[in-house]
């Protein structure tokens, strides 16, 4: 890794831009992101900035139950995030469907079966600091080049 690549890698950790995707959440997890961006928990102390469009983001925060209708939206938005990218799943819903599992329009499967998830933040909803911790972990993975999408593209380049 030469100097420029090193600087780029460090800047990925020091300024992770995030975008939110509500895949069918009860809004509990999304409500917890709001204090995360407030001065109290201050995500910007880690360089985190919330952006409205996936095209500006490094990390996608996905919250909520996966539904039949949100499946395609998740795939579309994930495809629009420029490489390298990381996915953070918030709460219990993306991992299993939580209490909504088994409902007719709920997928009741892990988000991992739709897009590669790098960090899981447990909780229902998770605390703001747990979310911040999750974002920091994802940023660290981006620096190390160890997110699943980065590993995947490296594998693709080698083969």
């Amino acid at each position, binding site marked *: 890794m030469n100097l420029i690549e090193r600087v780029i890698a460090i800047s990925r950790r020091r300024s992770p831009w995030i975008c939110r995707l509500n895949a069918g959440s009860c809004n509990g997890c999304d409500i917890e992101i709001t204090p995360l961006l407030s001065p109290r928990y201050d995500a910007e102390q880690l360089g985190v900035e919330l952006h409205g469009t996936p095209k500006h983001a490094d990390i996608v925060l996905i919250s909520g139950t996966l539904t039949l209708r949100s499946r395609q939206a998740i795939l579309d938005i994930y495809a629009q995030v420029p490489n390298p990218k990381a996915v953070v799943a918030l709460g219990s819903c993306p991992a299993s469907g939580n209490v909504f599992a088994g409902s007719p329009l709920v997928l009741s499967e892990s988000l991992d079966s739709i897009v590669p*998830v*790098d960090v899981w933040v447990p909780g229902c909803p998770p605390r703001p600091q747990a979310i911040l*911790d999750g974002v920091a972990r994802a940023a660290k993975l981006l620096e190390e080049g160890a997110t699943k999408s980065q590993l995947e593209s490296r594998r693709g380049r080698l083969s």
Partner: protein
Amino acid sequence: MAMLKTILGNLLRPPRTRGPADMPDVPPVYRGALAHDAARCTACGTCAFVCAPKAITFTQDPGVSVSWHFFIGQCSFCGLCAQNCPTQAIGLQADAPGATNSAAGDGLRLESVVRLQPCTRCGAAHVPLPDAVMEALWGVGEAERGYCPECRRRAASEKLRAAFVPVQEAHHDR
């Protein structure tokens, strides 16, 4: 001037922002991650029954053990399992669960193994009752402590029978 005073005052005060590791105190009733105590569990299945998202499951190794499984990615932290556990084997910890990299699996899974014991009378493998429950039901140092539920039932009915049906030789003065 007033603004200057505010600025000076704020300069001297510590910031209100919390660092990522600076977790605020949570109230003692906060429902955080689950903890399970295998020594108190009787594998009755009440927790799995009341759990709406089915975060708790059981597997059996017949004759050897029963395992209690918990998947945090399915839990809604409602606390019903801890509330309904008759032996208080489940507790919801006050510390909040942290984030996990998916390299370590899709979140946190707990497994807690409840070993079966052979009955001291008939030898059938069974889940021993927790000590406190045993003491309350059967007292300390009774032979029934090592019995399986079937033999305990039998022993209890024998006791009952002995209390109601007088033995022939016994003098009954009522």
